[in-house]
């Protein structure tokens, strides 16, 4: 087993430009938030990929369980009445 100092893992989110949401791009190891921001800049924005960076400790992210994907998400598939295509509009009325 390694005796090297273990730097915590941070998840990195980048806003490519104003008007777009921050998007998950990957992760970095860093001792604290400030170092994580600096490392993210070097690792993920070397070619102008971003105008803003968020970092969050990986341990702070709660995720849904993929084993329960079906219960979580499949029920949405049979609720077609939530889709605009489920409703009939007479052709004479035109686009709606």
């Amino acid at each position, binding site marked *: 087993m390694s005796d090297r100092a*273990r*730097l915590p893992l941070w998840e990195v989110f980048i806003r490519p430009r104003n008007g777009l949401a921050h998007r998950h791009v990957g*992760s*970095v190891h860093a*001792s604290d938030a400030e170092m994580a921001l600096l490392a993210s800049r070097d690792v993920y924005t070397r070619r102008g990929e971003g105008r803003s960076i968020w970092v969050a400790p990986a341990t702070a992210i709660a995720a849904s369980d993929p*084993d329960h994907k079906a219960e979580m998400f499949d029920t949405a598939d049979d609720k077609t009445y939530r889709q605009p295509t489920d409703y009939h509009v007479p052709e004479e009325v035109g686009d709606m």
Partner: protein
Amino acid sequence: MYVRGLINASGDPNAAETPEQLAHFQDRIDAEEKIEARDWMPAAYRKTLIRQISQHAHSEIIGMQPEGNWVTRAPSLRRKASLLAKVQDEGGHGLYLYAAAETLGISREEMQDQLLSGAAKYSSIFNYPTLTWADIGAIGWLVDGAAIMNQIPLCRCSYGPYARAMVRVCKEESFHQRQGYEIMTTLAQGAPAQKAMAQDALNRWWTPSVMMFGPPDSDSIHSVQSMTWKIKRFTNDALRQRFVDATVPQADYLSLTVPDPDCKWNDAVQHYDIGPLDWGDFWKVVKGGGPMNRQRIAARQKADDDGAWVREAALAYATKRSALMEAAE
């Protein structure tokens, strides 16, 4: 999501894998569904990916050394800036790949230990020395060219985090190959001594580059299973042929000669033929007998040792600060 250590319960290596689980997994693969970090996967799929992604990451990190050797001696400021950017990219690629491997439940520290102990391998191409400036051109053109051939299909690999990392890597590699070819063009069109230097670099890098695709399909132990799992999309020999077909005309353009007397266009099959490769030499280098194996690991070990105090100090500072912040609240 790149969250470490979140292996689902069924990822326990001791849990028996039922034929139904395996069949369902293969159905997902066959349907071109991506597998994500916390999805159920066979232990052997996980193991194969950890081996492949970590070797790939190690190759990027060790690959910084042969080129780093020439940063301070680049012939112009433009060449120096681009080489520095390229070496920095390789470091970045290593980090994306370590992060992708970590989603499978191995820590970056474990992978680094495996590299330093020799338990994990890296691409044997980096065990050759960079003797002249032309080697920097040849590496960008040939080694990065071969890497791109290998990596483009990996963007469609069945494992999501690996595929996404590869998309970024491939975007950046294109600059690497072009800068290498530009160096070769400048030398090949320069004075006779410069052209000779370019030819010498091609002579030394051609065969190791052609071998980067790995052993022939008939001897490749991991190929069949990796193809079934769609980790690999093309066989070693198919990718090698594609590389040779793309690269020989580029050498012709430079009026340089590929160091293989059997390398000829075969009109019947519409491909270039190449002569037999000495795989004994390849395996010797993989197993540690290459000209630079010891230096590469020694340099990596030194960087690791020299950086230890920085990591420790940064962590100590972060711990102290968060304690102060808590006390102040």
